[in-house]
């Protein structure tokens, strides 16, 4: 009974989310925030991958922006200098980034905890230095411009209204795929790995293989988001892929709740609304507030803000039920 009720509730929540997302870009609703919503959608895709990696397998990545940047740069270079079709460029970027993650996955996952964090940080910074050099080969000193819009047949995604639906189509697809992974045998294996690697191994889970698989998946997500980012802004620079960017991605995953797929929307959304809309008024105070949020969330609710809120709602609902008010 409770299970069915719970699933009814989550269907309701998801239906509300869909309705909100469909109505949001219209002028009479949240039309003026369409660009912000596009960016949130793009970052949600990256954050979901990071949530799977950090929350479900317990592996840290402080270099996720590297994969994000690889997607953006490969798309940008192939579709400008080499005149590739943007969709093909996007596919090549995803495959290349996934392959890169696969190659580095086995050696890097021999490291754990602190050392893994430092290795991913180092990798992220190396890629950032590479991106800065790529600018000079393929564009201006600051970045690559003139990236074409995506299009299907004659339909060009040249307005933010159109790109909004494109981005959120990808975003929801990624969320649903991830949701299914988490609920499948793979998801249970991942949680076992997070609980105890030794125990997981003892019941026949190939720990290394699962970790690398998830790393590749998160890299492909990030690359996809990077490609969308490049074709949305039509300009790519190195700055959105620096160390701070990787840290901000971790912030989004942490706020959303590391072990929560849908929390990613909340994490990416809250972070961007905070920094793009609210904190702008405080000037450069955003770093301070980000830092404070990280520390406070980790001390008081290490399972994440979104998950904590969900727990509180759930508890309230149960108390309500026990009083016999609900039929």
């Amino acid at each position, binding site marked *: 009974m409770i299970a069915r009720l719970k699933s009814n509730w989550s269907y309701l929540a998801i239906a509300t989310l869909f309705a909100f997302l469909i109505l949001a870009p219209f002028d009479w609703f949240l039309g003026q925030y369409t660009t912000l919503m596009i960016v949130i959608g793009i970052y949600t895709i990256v954050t979901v991958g990071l949530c799977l990696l950090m929350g479900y397998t*317990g592996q840290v990545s402080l270099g996720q922006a590297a994969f994000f940047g690889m997607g953006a740069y490969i798309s940008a270079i192939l579709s400008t200098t080499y005149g590739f079709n943007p969709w093909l460029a996007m596919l090549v970027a995803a495959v290349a980034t996934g392959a890169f993650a696969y190659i580095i996955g086995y050696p890097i996952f021999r490291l754990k905890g602190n*050392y893994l964090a430092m*290795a991913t940080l180092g990798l992220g*910074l190396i890629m950032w230095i590479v991106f800065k050099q790529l600018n000079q080969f393929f564009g201006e000193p600051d970045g690559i411009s003139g990236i074409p819009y995506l299009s299907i047949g004659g339909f060009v995604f040249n307005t933010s209204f159109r790109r909004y639906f494109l981005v959120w189509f990808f975003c929801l697809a990624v969320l649903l795929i991830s949701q299914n992974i988490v609920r499948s045998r793979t998801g249970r294996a991942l949680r076992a790995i997070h609980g105890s690697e030794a125990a997981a191994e003892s019941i026949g889970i190939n720990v290394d293989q699962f970790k690398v698989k998830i790393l590749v998946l998160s890299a492909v997500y990030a690359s996809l988001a990077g490609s969308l980012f490049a074709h949305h802004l039509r300009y790519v620079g190195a700055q959105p892929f620096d160390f701070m960017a990787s*840290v901000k991605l971790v912030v989004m995953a942490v706020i959303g709740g590391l072990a929560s797929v849908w929390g990613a929307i909340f994490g990416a959304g809250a972070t961007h609304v905070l920094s793009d809309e609210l904190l702008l008024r405080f000037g*450069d105070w955003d770093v301070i507030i980000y830092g*404070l949020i990280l520390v406070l969330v*980790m001390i008081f609710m290490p399972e994440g803000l979104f998950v904590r809120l969900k727990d509180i709602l759930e508890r309230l609902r149960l108390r309500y039920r026990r009083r016999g008010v609900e039929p």
Partner: protein
Amino acid sequence: MASEQFVQYLISGITSGSIYALVGLGFTIIYAVTKIINFAQGEFVMLGGLVSFTLIYRAGIPLVPALILAILIAAAVGAAMYLLAIRPPKKASVVSLIIITIGVAMFVRGIAGQVLTKEFIRLPSFSGEKSISFLGASIDPQALWIIGTMVMVTIILHLFLTYTMVGKALKACAINPVASSLVGINPKTMALIAFVLAAAIGGIGGVVFAPLTLMSYQGGVMLGLKGFVAAAIGGFKSPVAAVIGGLLLGIIESFAVAANWGPFTSAYKDAIALVVLLLILLIRSGKLAEEERAG
């Protein structure tokens, strides 16, 4: 390469290596005692430089007291960091602690930018700007201050750890916190001392480094990373090993940039440390995994 040039590059490598060594010492002390990698370690160096600049040019305090005060302030920030952010969470995982130290680093960096200065700053040299000739190379006297300070700090730290009661307690806690708490050593107090020591050493590094280079509130990130590489080369075990690691890294960087061919241009100077870092981590990964399991 002419021998004067060789000496020149060697000394410049040892100079920056000494700074990396000081940062690496901080990483090693904190890691040994608490098993935490403190991502805010570079920020203490930045604080040392920026606080002394503010004290000298805004508050008008003379050089020497300003420098001492700056080091004390960095140490106080280290203590506050431990008491307010590291100690409160119960049963925090490695991942949460990493995120917490990153959060503290961002917070300290942001506050430094807002409260101290956003400019690139430089302190006056301790003993004049006139460079010294040595084996045909010209040396900034501040470089000698940096190298000398690093050597002094290392010696004092070594003596402290070997001959004083508190130092021995720190060592014991690093070797086995449970056993040392059985003989009356409080691991939490030791962790606090480790943070204060590391922050003070970082502050000292900032104070001696700021006259030689331009420093800004964002300068802590790269310095922290280089210091980490130094500590990683040393294996996070002994202070002396971290110092050797720092010097090695400084010298490698200096000569790689000097060679100036192909990929080794100054644009890639920072990448060298990162590649060294990855190589060390991957080569030692088997041993590191064992340690983590045992610890």
